[in-house]
């Protein structure tokens, strides 16, 4: 508990208040409120269709919510409502301060350019114009995500799922974001690759003091990565708390079912 509190800062980085999203008359998520601080990993768990991804998309600026506000501590403008910002400012803030790791690497990578160019892109988007320096930074980051640098100039289509996901992680961390969104980052991977990638992510998140909002339906991922958990069901948050507390002593009936239905070998 002491280690946790020293790593996490006291002022909030992200404030979500009363977030609601309707798709016509169908509910995406309803009245979600939470704060995140720098260095904190927030896990969102729940079954398919419970509104996890809707929440993630709303918070990450991809999907304007029907009601509620999302405020973020931006580098340029300080604490501001992300949907009240002008579009160029919001896009710039997303490039500078955020990262987004998709479940399917094909959604997060440019498949027509090499892995190295994919990792270097955020630097160029932020004004990097020196090839040699960007190349070196790319190689450093590929080593950091334990990627074979000999294959830096291959296309992502020629990489395995685990390698693609490593490229995606490097691409989303190279520019030093404050907050990274992860949508099932280990979703489509086999368990041994999953375990190695999780280990790596955990290490990077701790080293870089990143705030991470991670959506997953895998309780093991939640246990390993998250400091805090939010359990969602039918678009509503039914339980929140420290990860160990929620998983070891679930209060809500749905959380109890969720925790007890994890397969044991």
């Amino acid at each position, binding site marked *: 508990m002491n280690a946790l509190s020293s790593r996490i800062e006291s002022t909030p980085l992200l404030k979500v208040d009363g977030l609601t999203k309707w798709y016509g008359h169908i509910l995406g998520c309803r009245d979600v409120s939470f704060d995140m601080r720098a260095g904190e990993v927030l896990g969102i768990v729940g079954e398919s269709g419970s509104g996890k991804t809707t929440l993630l998309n709303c918070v990450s600026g991809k999907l304007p919510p029907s009601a509620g506000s999302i405020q973020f501590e931006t580098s340029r403008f300080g604490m501001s409502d992300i949907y009240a910002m002008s579009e160029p400012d919001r896009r*710039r803030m997303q490039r500078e301060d955020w990262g987004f790791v998709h479940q399917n690497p094909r959604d997060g990578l440019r498949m027509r350019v090499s892995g190295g160019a994919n990792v270097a892109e955020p630097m160029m988007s932020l004004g*990097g*114009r*020196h090839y040699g320096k960007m190349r070196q930074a790319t190689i450093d980051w590929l080593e950091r995500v334990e990627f074979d640098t000999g294959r830096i100039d291959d296309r992502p289509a020629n990489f395995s799922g685990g390698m693609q996901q490593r490229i995606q992680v490097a691409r989303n961390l190279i520019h030093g974001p404050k907050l990274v969104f992860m949508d099932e980052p280990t979703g489509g991977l086999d368990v041994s690759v999953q375990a190695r990638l999780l280990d790596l992510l955990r290490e990077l998140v701790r080293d870089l003091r990143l705030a991470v909002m991670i959506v997953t339906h895998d309780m093991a991922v939640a246990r390993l990565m998250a400091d805090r958990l939010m359990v969602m069901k039918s678009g509503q948050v039914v339980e929140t708390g420290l990860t160990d507390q929620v998983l070891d002593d679930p209060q809500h009936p749905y959380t109890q079912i969720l925790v007890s239905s994890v397969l044991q070998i």
Partner: protein
Amino acid sequence: MSVQTGSNNAPERYYNYAYLDEQTKRMIRRAILKALAIPGYQVPFGSREMPVPYGWGTGGIQLTAAIVGPDDVYKCIDQGADDTTNAVSIRQFFAKVADVETTEDTSEATIIQSRHRVPEKPLKAGQVMVLQVPQPEPLRFLEPRETETRAMHAYEEYGLQYVALYERVARVGRINAGAGHPVMVEERYLMSPSPIPAFDNPKLGFSEAIYLLGAGREKRIYAVPPYTRVRSLDFEDHPFAVQTWDENCALCGADDAYLDEVVLDDQGAKMYVCSDSHHCAERREAGHVGPMAGHQLAQAEKEPAQ
């Protein structure tokens, strides 16, 4: 059907002078004016069906049709040559529908239409260079969504274009500018200069002449007005450079022109000749000789092109 010439130009013919009707030409002129007012910005326009297939220069033909008048002198080149099929037929087209005088001489022409080359001879004030563009959007290869590329132009988010350059440097070790190397116009709009070779990119900047670029299939017109800053993109440690050749032109000995490689037989023999056929012929007339002067290729060019 009889071919109409300047002599029987009845006033009513001027309704669809130069093939297009007046309303269409006016629409295209408006787009041209807007393009000139915002250098490098792609102006959408209502591209018409032309009597040639897309990809054969429909954008350039519509631009020429909108600006041409009976007093103009028209030159059309494909690659650098005046005598290739596409160039000859477009030139004949305008001779027929616009009663315009045609020429192969760069300095005589007031309108020069081209796809791949800008003539070697520097263009002067009063000349208009019309370029045919297959793909006006330089970011299209990396970003397939039009909505997204429009936003990127609007907000000047051009980092993505450098990804393409990064890729080239990673693969071949240099910027390796081939054709259609992207340029920044007045440090505001990113522009694809049609598939002209990078060799011709520097000619776009601070030119005396007007450059008009038209994409018929993609329905976009854009322009570089005279005396505009045009910068070819590059990296700090990999500066932009144009192509150079170890050889000189085999026919006229030019050492500063854009050269085409011509394969002569199946034994590996080849020669390099100026891609700008008129420039080469003019130099030969002025007495310049290259190592293979008098080759039959030089004879072929003397035949009338039309």
